[in-house]
């Protein structure tokens, strides 16, 4: 089954009238990265999907539900477990991006959207 077919049939994806719904830009990036890794053969779609199911299952009733937060957690778990990235690399990259943002004064600042 191709990745495109797998996505078409993936029942857990948030949809409206059959179409995928992204509420924030990072969600579509998370979606795009996972699909790109599967399409290129770097990762197996089923390996991702089994972790996604596990992450969804571990969702705590008290937390606000966020499908793509689960998606991101599954992606991170897959990358760490497959040894494609390490936790230390991820931490270092986050620090680098945070410092970069702090020094960039002239970029347009999106104000928060009310949803």
């Amino acid at each position, binding site marked *: 089954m191709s990745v495109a077919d797998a996505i078409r049939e993936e029942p857990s994806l948030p949809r409206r*009238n059959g179409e*995928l719904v*992204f509420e924030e830009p990072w969600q579509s990036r998370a979606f795009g990265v996972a*699909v790109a*890794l599967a399409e290129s053969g770097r990762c197996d779609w089923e390996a991702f999907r089994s972790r996604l199911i596990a992450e969804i299952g571990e969702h705590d009733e008290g937390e606000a539900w966020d499908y793509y937060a689960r998606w*991101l957690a599954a992606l*991170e778990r897959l*990358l760490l477990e497959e040894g494609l990235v390490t936790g230390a690399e991820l931490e270092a990259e986050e620090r680098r*991006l945070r410092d970069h943002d702090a020094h960039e004064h002239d970029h347009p600042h999106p104000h928060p959207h009310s949803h």
Partner: protein
Amino acid sequence: MSARDDTALRMRAIESLLIEKRLLTEEVVDRIASAYEHDIGPLRGARVVARAWSDDGFRERLLADGTAAMGELGIGGFVAEHVVVVENTPELHNLVTCTLCSCYPWGVLGLPPSWYKSPEYRSRAVREPRAVLADFGVELPAGTAIRVWDSSAEVRYLVLPLRPPGTEGLDEEALAELVTRDAMIGTGLAQAPA
């Protein structure tokens, strides 16, 4: 920093690390993300436009209260935004921007295209809308005025484009295919039937 910012930062870190390690390229992620958000997202808006072209009663309700009329089609709800629909006429063309950031009717159009978020578009749309339209390949008759709408977090605008000539016999599904994302932002026109 909020939990949501942390999540967005984590996602950026993952993507940039994978790109740095040459495990994927930004172009591939862009292509996949845009296939789902730009091409598939605006279909909701296109259905709204096609209905308005086909049903005068719906058109009137849509122009009076966009959010409520779109609710009739089961559209909206997941983004708390009020959508105001502005109608193009032979005398008036509407163009939508967001001068402060990139407010956009996500519920009907999906995620905004990257040019919509660019500082250049956001400033030029207000200052020289006719030149911006020309860049998009849209030449309006000299007699057509242009009105620019500045979106906000509370109010988002959707352009109801002019129905192209020669489409009298088309049903809603065929009409919806003529409605592009850009036509609903005002940087394009509805396409002529093939």
